[in-house]
């Protein structure tokens, strides 16, 4: 469903992606692992068109990602950002229902509010949170609201950018379980980027290891522990020694 072919992206002299190839099948959950600054977010943002690759092709359902109606293309995606990226000036329910209050998916205000409250409940938040502002929520609640916003319009493809960063282990577990449940329930295609190995094991059907701007290894999560790939071995065991330089 999503295919990246020989994608290159550099920022000045920093070559972040050096011919990345990746394929994510429809309805599966792919988790991309890799160290900080290895281009995981760049890969994800390239698929959405937030960053233009220097070269290479990205296809979604066989069509180049930049082709056709951009709004229709983006309407197929939902995204949970690392810091939540909630709009400070809007109350929680308007953040969740943002897409339902304007544009092609616009619904009447009461209906949009109802959907927002239902999605908030789905991620374990009470209806009284709906009228609060993002600054009044804890980090874990903000992540849940971000998750509710990502699924509000029932997208076919959902991206999760470091979904558990900054959360305590219990809240991380809650978010991981929610992501897994929602992805299975909606039958969505999911792509997650994370360093958190607990998340990987909870969320992934398949795993890809990004290092040096290319995918070093990819395979089912069940094979990750026996991949035989030195990069994956070092990363999942958190060793300082190995092919990945500890100081980057």
């Amino acid at each position: 469903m999503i295919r990246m072919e020989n994608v290159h992206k550099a920022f000045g002299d920093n070559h972040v992606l050096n011919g990345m190839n990746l394929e994510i099948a429809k309805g599966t959950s792919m988790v991309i692992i890799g160290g900080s600054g290895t281009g995981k977010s760049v890969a994800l943002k390239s698929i959405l068109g937030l960053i233009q690759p220097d070269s290479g092709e990205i296809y979604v359902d066989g069509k180049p990602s930049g082709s056709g109606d951009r709004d229709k293309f983006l309407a197929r995606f939902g995204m949970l950002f690392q810091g939540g990226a909630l709009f400070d000036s809007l109350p929680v329910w308007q953040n969740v229902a943002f897409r339902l209050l304007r544009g092609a998916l616009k619904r009447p205000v009461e209906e949009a509010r109802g959907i927002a409250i239902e999605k908030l409940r789905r991620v374990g938040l009470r209806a009284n949170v709906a009228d609060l502002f993002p600054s009044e929520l804890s980090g874990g609640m903000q992540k849940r609201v971000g998750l509710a916003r990502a699924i509000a319009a029932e997208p076919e493809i959902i991206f999760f950018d470091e979904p558990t960063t900054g959360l305590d282990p219990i809240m991380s577990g809650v978010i991981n379980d929610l992501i897994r449940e929602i992805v299975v329930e909606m039958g969505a295609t999911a792509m997650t980027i994370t360093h958190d190995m607990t998340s990987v094991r909870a969320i992934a059907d398949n795993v890809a290891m990004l290092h040096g701007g290319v995918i070093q290894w990819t395979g089912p999560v069940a094979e990750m522990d026996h991949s035989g790939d030195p990069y994956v071995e070092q990363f999942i065991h958190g060793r300082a020694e190995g092919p990945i330089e500890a100081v980057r």
Partner: protein
Amino acid sequence: MNPLALLARLGRTALASLAAVGRAALFALSAFSHMVRPPYYPREFLQALLNVGWLSLPVVGLTAIFTGGALALQIYAGGARFNAEAVVPQIVAIGMVRELGPVLVGLMIAARVTSSIAAEIATMKVTEQIDALVTLSTHPMKYLVAPRVLAALITVPVLVGTGDIIGIMGGYTVAVQNLGFNAAAYLKNTVDFLEPLDIISSLVKGAAFGTIAAMMGCYYGMQSGRGAQGVGRATKGSVESAAVLILAANFVLTGVFFSL
């Protein structure tokens, strides 16, 4: 320093400056094109009208009243040197309407509105809210930039008109209370002396300065670098650029209106 190296550095600086001007001009063109093409965001526009217009009234009013009062004192003291104290109403009126009203309101808007727009949009960029907007099928130029620029284009002339009146009333108060002018004669002299072109030029300057102020806030916000330092730089750059461009535009517009 090697003359060639100096020349190269000057060339690079000149090219970088031209590139920056080009980027800002393209940004402005894009903002105007998004202003006239749907979808429109009336809620964001009304919010911007409130922020740029209504909430700027106190600072504009205070600036204008003190400036008008000080202007009356200065003209009275200066005019006394050649027995021309009687021209206070006329000079206060023309000074406020043609020059000080638009320029001071423009600069106050640059301080209050440009900085706030730049800081808000830059923070949104740093916290990935702009990316989130895009993923939610909402164009940041339409949702963030167009409503703010349009609101400034409409409200700043109104603020300038209000500032002109308050400034003249500041001069009037000082002249009548402290300098012994006759109240009715002061107002008559003011009204008789002003011409329609004076008022038109004031309002046109207001529209131009408002557009510049909002545009610079949006431009620097959208171009912001990472982190708190990026937001700080964007805010500082936006206010500096807006202030300089407002003064430059004032010079050009004054030339256009009164030197032909």
